[in-house]
């Protein structure tokens, strides 16, 4: 019986005596012997495979108890009933003990594997690949999203522009002293007529004229994009930077609407409690022209000793104003019918304020140690 040979490996000693139970005449004593032997062995078994072997040995089709039941026919009829009941009871007993032992073995083996599988959870994880949008992109999106929520669309325009759109259509004719406000990088362009000048746009404002030329009011758009100036760089100036321009034109648009729109923007960008303030400023393409400040979110407008607002309690964040009638006339709009407002801001400045960046030159130096912080 090769099967019994295998069993020797698992159940040491004393089993073979039970392997031919059918030869015996079953008795109450023999059943108790089986229970005693089986229980003793059961306690010493440590793994599930051996438990299964044990089950076969005692409870299986050719197991000890089965043999007892099969041997019932060979005993007195008077004893048969009692011994049969004992045998069945013994079967239930052994099955219960097996179940309990299986539970115990499972529990012990789980404990062992828990110990074996323990990790040093303080070791760093397997690095995932990291990538983020440039902080300017993030802020530009945030700004645009704030206006999109107020019904504005987002459009873009060319970075290389005609003088016509960058200046003339914006009420800054040739020779106008206000041109000094924008130190311009001119493009080397050989115009056969010698009339057109090409440049790197100094602001996103040329899109005001382009958008208005291309459609009728009502208009609500924001225009993000790169701008260029002939300017030395320092901690607060870059020759290459972004702007977000905004424009709303329609019937009955007033300075009060400008205030409301920009107030809503300020709250979305800088928090619900923000206050806004306007002061008079000059841009040739708006009249009246203003500069908008928010109360400082770092010191809550307190000002004293604040590095962000330099003690003032206020932070200038954008220029704005009612679109100059000459700009509206220039694109062929009826100035008696339509009014509008425009605004423009520097996303780098806003990012610097929000994130506490002290030098604008970080933005386009592309040091990954900077970029990865955002």
């Amino acid at each position: 019986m090769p099967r019994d040979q295998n069993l020797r490996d698992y159940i040491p000693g004393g089993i073979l005596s039970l392997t031919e139970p059918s030869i015996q005449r079953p008795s109450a004593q023999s059943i108790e012997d089986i229970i005693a032997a089986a229980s003793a062995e059961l306690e010493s078994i440590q793994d599930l495979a051996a438990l299964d072997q044990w089950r076969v040995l005692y409870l299986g089709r050719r197991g000890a108890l089965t043999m007892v039941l099969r041997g019932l026919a060979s005993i007195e009829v008077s004893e048969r009933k009692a011994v049969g009941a004992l045998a069945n009871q013994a079967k239930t007993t052994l099955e219960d003990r097996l179940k309990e032992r299986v539970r115990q073995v499972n529990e012990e083996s789980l404990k062992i594997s828990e110990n074996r599988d323990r990790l040093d959870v303080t070791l760093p994880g397997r690095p995932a690949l990291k990538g983020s949008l440039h902080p300017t992109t993030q802020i530009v999106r945030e700004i645009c999203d704030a206006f999109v929520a107020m019904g504005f669309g987002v459009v873009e325009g060319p970075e290389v522009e005609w003088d016509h759109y960058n200046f003339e259509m914006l009420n800054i004719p040739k020779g106008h002293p206000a041109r000094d406000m924008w130190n311009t990088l001119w493009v080397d362009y050989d115009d056969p007529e010698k009339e057109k000048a090409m440049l790197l746009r100094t602001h996103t404002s040329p899109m005001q004229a382009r958008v208005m030329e291309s459609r009728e009011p009502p208009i609500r758009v924001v225009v993000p994009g790169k701008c260029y100036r002939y300017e030395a760089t320092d901690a607060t100036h870059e020759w290459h930077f972004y702007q977000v321009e905004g424009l709303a034109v329609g019937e009955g648009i007033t300075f009060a609407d400008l205030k409301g729109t920009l107030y809503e923007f300020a709250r979305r960008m800088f928090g619900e409690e923000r206050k806004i303030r306007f002061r008079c400023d000059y841009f040739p393409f708006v009249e009246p022209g203003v500069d908008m400040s928010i109360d400082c979110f770092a010191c809550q407008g307190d000002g004293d000793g604040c590095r962000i607002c330099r003690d003032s309690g206020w932070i200038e964040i954008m220029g704005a104003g009612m679109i100059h009638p000459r700009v509206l006339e220039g694109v062929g709009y009826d100035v008696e019918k339509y009014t509008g407002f425009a605004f423009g801001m520097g996303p780098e400045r806003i990012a610097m304020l929000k994130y506490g960046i002290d030098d604008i030159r970080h933005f386009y130096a592309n040091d990954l140690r900077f970029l990865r912080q955002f």
Partner: protein
Amino acid sequence: MKISLSWLKQYVDVDLPVSELSHRLTMAGIEVGEVEIIGGWTEVFVGHVTDVRPHPNADRLRLCVVNTGNEEMEVVCGAPNVAPDQNICLAKVGAKVYNTHTERYEILGPAKIRGVESQGMICSAVELGLGAENDGIIVLPDDAPVGASLDDYLGDVVLDLELTPNRLDCLSVLGVAYEVAAITGKEVVEPEASYHESGVPISEQVKISVADPDLCPRYTASLLQGVTIGPSPQWLQDLLIKGGLRPINNVVDVTNFVMLEYNQPLHSFDYDRIKDATVIVRRARLGEKLTTLDDIERTLCTDNLVIADANDAIGLGGVIGGANSEINENTINVLLESATFNGANNRETAQAMELRTEATLRFEKGLRAELAPIALRRATALIQEVAGGTIAPGIVDIVSEEGAEPAVVTLTSGKIRRMLGMDVGLKQTQETLTSLGFTWEVEGDAALKVTVPYWRNDVNIEEDLVEEVVRTIGYESVPTTMLSSPIPFQHPVPVMNLRDKVKDLLTSAGIQEVINYPLVTLQQLEQVRQLDTEALPIRVANPMSSDREYLRTTLRASILGTLAANQSHSIGPFRLFEAGRVFTPREDDLPDEKETVTGLLAGLRHEPSWLEDETHMDFYDAKGIVELVFERLSVNVTYQPAEDPTFYPGRCAVIETSDSVVGMVGEVHPVVMERLGLDSPQVAIFELYLEPILAALPESQRNFEALPRYPSATRDLALVMPADVSAGLVTRVITGHRGVHHAELFDIYVGENISEGSKSLAFHVYFQARDRTLTNEEVNKSLDGLLRTLDRELNVTLRV
């Protein structure tokens, strides 16, 4: 523009603290930058020297008796210019003065100098922080109030105004005074300008004509005779210095003073050096020469306006005077000019000559012509006051039609409501305008006919007046409302949406966005072998520096530069991309700005870690990214071997849709790597061209494909083929075969058991039908067909 508060106070009462004044000016659009405090002295007084005696123990020192009003004290002084009967600045013990030896401010203590007790110090300019002068003591004017605190007498506050180009008026002290008056509700007192005339009328002594009134709408002049040229009185010099100008002589100083006071630039000619006493205001003759006050001989053209005598130009109108008519110490008779010049022409001339003078700064912005005679009379009176002489009766005043009309603008309350979204009462409007110096007449019941004062050149239309009103009453009084007009339909901008989507895909694939300058050098383009010397990129005409001269035609140079810069402090992995525009010139038009995304992968495949291997990224990492992008965009593309000078031959593919090139992917050529000093085994680059991708986007982004309802059957095929048959081609044939759903390439093998010049590719091939479970026979039949096709078309056979 620097404005001295003490000067300002000569015209308007200022009782606000400086910080409040600065704030309110700033809010009204006159931004106050730096505020400079002059003085701030304690224990320094105006003293009077009553006696000067030699020092008993030192030749170079003297003992001065100084009266400070109620006491006399003895002070040791080493200055060579100290003399009896002078008013001086006396620092008493306890004063803080600058010590030129220690180069620090120090508190003055009692001192014995060469054995004599000194009870104070007579100060030089440098000791009081009033300038660099240290050769002698400051001698105060005779009318200085002896005994007064010097801070009360000389102390001042100078406001540095950061003016916007429209507010020309605030380049003058009076202009600022009117602004302050409007803010504070005070009145401005303009200076006296009356004088006594005598002798022969000016009209008989000089002949003036304006030949080109378009460039000179108004020309006024006066004549002073018998003046004495010399230094200006101290008060005049002090104010000029505070205004940022250098004193020269009394006549020139007055012209500069009146310019700072009224804004009107004036010019003084030596009358006796004007040939034939004739002045002609005309365009210059082509090639005409003029040596200007800065001793430069300039060659003029007909766009330049000159002031000329009978023969030659004697000044460049409104820009700079000529050396040939300059006031000097021998000048006796002065012809004083106060004129209005055409702003645009003045600016053009000044720019052409690279001469931005105080005069052009003002003329170019368009001074009002009414100002010319006002300033002329003020300056004439003042010159007589400081330089003596007599004034010839009358002035010359040549004014063209457009010259002298004051600007009149109508303002309606309807306009105010339409612009601001609120009503401003007529009375409040009137008061506001009056406070700013505007005059008005009521027109009907809701309009004002407003006359703009002579010092304001920036108010020309009704909207300008609305701004005057709102900036004065304050923007906080305007209500805050939301746009109530209908929301326009916003047409999507497909290329922006695509760019955003690609950016998001790339960052989520672990690639960092960078943004570079679009201006590059030719060398940078040459380094990545993208310079076409036949068609140079667009050039900036006035580059700031040679490294920012050309508009880039590729993003590769910039992003490789970013890699090189970051390799100095990191070993990677470097996974970068930039989304930007490249510029190509177009005939008679703005350049084509092509939206491009260029990505770069270099260095370790994973962050250095205790877990990972140390392999480096290569071509296939880049291609994997590209595949991800096109998969997510639902654009079907193919990859074809390509040649591109930037890339290593044989490791470069062009990405194509059925009708256009939509990208490139490849490993950077070792030559390029070496030129840029790149320190990686290889650098892989991918490039996506957004416009053609846009054209290839499916109409609707995605169509749901039903999940398979029947199981697939798999067969593994090990195939042998000539080495030059591409995996892409074999894959395409397999997946295109009838019955095949898809295939996965899982092994590539070259070596033992494979003949020279061949390679083996192994695929899992999945067979599947939509409508039923394929039988074994069907799968085998399909497979047989596939093997026959592979053999026939590509010389691919089953490996045995």
